[in-house]
C-alpha cells in the first residue's frame, strides 16, 4: 500500500519535472502524457517481446522519446503561446489515438506481461533528476535559460542559440517522461492507451502550475500534494472527485502563481567569483 503511494508520487514528480524542464526554456508542453506513453510502450515491448533487461529498456525507451520529442518540437516550435499549447495537446491526442490503432501492442485492449519495477527505481531516479536540476539551478546554464524564457529576442541578440536550447529542453523532458513511463508500466503491469491521453497531460501540467513554475521545488510539492490529496480525502468517499476539482479551482484562485512561486537566485556564486581576483 505504502509502496503504491511511493511509486505514484515518484512517477508524478518525475513527470512534473519533465514539464518543468521544458518550461525552463519558456514552452509549456501538454505532450508529456504522450512522451510517457511512448516510454511505457517501447520499454514494455522491449522487455516482453525481446527480453531486454528493464533498466536498459527504460533508457532505450527514453532515447526513442528523446528523438521523438526533438522531432516533433522542431516544427512545433515555429508556433508560440496558446498555439504551441494546442499543438502539444494535438501531439498527446495523436500518440494515444495511434497506439489505439496498433494491434501489435494490443490496441484499445492494452498491453501486459511486463513486470519487475520497484518503487526504489523511481526513488533513485527522483534523487538523480532532482540533484541534476538543483545543480542546474545554480549554474550558468540556468541564467541562459532564464534569459531565453524572459525574452527570446534579447537572448538571441546576445549570442544564445535559442532554438537549440529549446530543442534540448524538449528532448530532455521527453526522455525523463519516457523513463518515468517505463517504470510506471513495469510496476502497474498493464497499460492502456487511454491512461496517457490529454487528461494525463493536463494533470501533469497542473502539478507544475499548482506547485509553482519558477523553481524545481514547486513541481515536487505540486505533484506530491496532488497525488496524495485524493488519498487523504478518502473519508469523503464518493465526493472525492468533486472536492478534488473544487480544491484545484480554489487553489488557483488563492495562489495563481503556485504554492511556491519564488525563484532560486543564481547570481550569488557568480558575484563571489567576480570579486575574488
Amino acid at each position, binding site marked *: 500500500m505504502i509502496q503504491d503511494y511511493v511509486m505514484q508520487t515518484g512517477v508524478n514528480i518525475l513527470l512534473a519535472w519533465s514539464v518543468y524542464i521544458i518550461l525552463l526554456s519558456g514552452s*509549456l508542453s501538454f505532450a508529456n502524457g504522450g512522451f510517457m506513453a511512448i516510454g511505457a510502450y517501447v520499454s514494455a515491448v522491449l522487455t516482453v517481446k525481446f527480453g531486454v533487461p528493464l533498466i536498459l529498456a527504460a533508457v532505450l525507451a527514453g532515447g526513442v522519446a528523446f528523438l521523438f520529442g526533438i522531432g516533433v518540437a522542431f*516544427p*512545433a516550435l*515555429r*508556433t508560440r*503561446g*496558446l*498555439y504551441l*499549447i*494546442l*499543438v502539444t*495537446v*494535438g*501531439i498527446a*491526442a*495523436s500518440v494515444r*489515438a*495511434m497506439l*489505439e*490503432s496498433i494491434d501489435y501492442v494490443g490496441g484499445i485492449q492494452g498491453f501486459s506481461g511486463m513486470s519487475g519495477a520497484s518503487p526504489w527505481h523511481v526513488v533513485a531516479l527522483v534523487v538523480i533528476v532532482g540533484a541534476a536540476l538543483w545543480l542546474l539551478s545554480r549554474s550558468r546554464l540556468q541564467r541562459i535559460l532564464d534569459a531565453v524564457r524572459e525574452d527570446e529576442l534579447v537572448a538571441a541578440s546576445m549570442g544564445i542559440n535559442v532554438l537549440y536550447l529549446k530543442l534540448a529542453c524538449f528532448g530532455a523532458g521527453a526522455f525523463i517522461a519516457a523513463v518515468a513511463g517505463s517504470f510506471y508500466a513495469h510496476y502497474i503491469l498493464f497499460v492502456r492507451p487511454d491512461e496517457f491521453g*490529454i*487528461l494525463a497531460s*493536463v494533470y501533469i*501540467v*497542473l502539478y507544475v*502550475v499548482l506547485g509553482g513554475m519558477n523553481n524545481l521545488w514547486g513541481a515536487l510539492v505540486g505533484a506530491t500534494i496532488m497525488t496524495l490529496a485524493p488519498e487523504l480525502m478518502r473519508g469523503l468517499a*464518493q465526493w472525492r*472527485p*468533486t472536492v*478534488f*476539482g*473544487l480544491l*484545484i*479551482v480554489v487553489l*488557483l*484562485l488563492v495562489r*495563481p502563481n503556485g504554492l511556491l512561486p519564488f525563484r532560486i537566485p543564481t547570481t550569488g556564486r557568480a558575484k563571489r567569483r567576480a570579486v575574488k581576483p
Partner: protein
Amino acid sequence: MLAEQIVNGIVMGSLYALIAQGYTLVFGVLDKLNFAHGEIFMLGGYIGVSSVALGASIPLALLLVMIVCGALGLLVEFVSFRKFRSHDAHITSALSSFAFGLVVLDLVQKSWGTEPVAIELPQTLRVANLEFLGVHFSLVKLSILGIALVLMAALHLAIARTSLGRSIRAVAESATSASLYGINVTRVIQLVFLLASALAGFAGVALAIRTGFASSDVGFTLGIKALAIMAIGGMGDLRGAFLGGLMIGVLEALAFQWGFGQLADTGVWLFMIFVLLVRPTGLFAARSSKEARA
C-alpha cells in the same frame, strides 16, 4: 448510401461547428481557452433527456437547456476567468476551467450514473422520414441541422449587425480601448460566455436526440475534438469554426464509409497540427489580422 453518409456528416459537422464557435467566441474576446466548454455541452444532453422524461416538449427542453447551460457558462466565467484577465494567465484560466469541467463531469455522473441515459422520443418523431431523389433523410436529423444553421446565422447577424455585437467585436480588438469608449468589458465577456454555453447546451441536446441517448464521455471526446476544429478553422474566427466543423464532419463520415473510421480521431489532430504549423490563422480565416476575430 454515399449521399446519406454525407448528410450524416453535415449534421454531425453542424454540431461540431456549434461547439467550436463557443470556443472561438471566448478565444476571440479573451485570447484564452475554455476547457469547461466540452463538459457544459455534455451536461446539455442530460438536462435535455431529463426534461423530456419529465414531460417537457422538445422546444421547451431546448429552451430550458440553453438557459441552464448559459447560466453555468456565467459561473465558469466568474470562477475561472474573471480573476485571470492578464495575458500571462492563459494557462491558469485554462487549467481552472478544466478543473471546473471535472466537477461538472463528476456531478453529472453522480446524478445520472456513468451509463448512457436513453432519451424518450415520441415514436412518430423517430420514424419520420423524408424521401428525396431516392435517398431517405430522417426528419429529426434534418431539423437538427436546420435549427443549428438558424442559430449560427442568428449569431453571425447579431455579431455583425447589432450594437451588442459591435461591443463584442470592439472588446475582441482591444479590451482597453473598448473600455475607454464606455463599453462595460465584463458585461461583454459575460455575454460571450452566455452565448457560447447556450449554443453548447443546444448541441448537447441535439446530439442526444440524434444518437438516442446522453452519455457522459462526449464532453471529453467530441468536446475536445471541437477544440481542434476551432484551431483548424482559425482561432477566434466564427466563419472558420463553421466551415471547419462542416468539413471535419463530412470527412469523418466519408472516412467511416470507406473503412478508415479508426484513423478519424488521429487524423483530426494531425490535421490541426499541420494547419497550425503551416497556416496558424486557420484554413478559412477571412483576414489574417485580429479584425477577423469574433
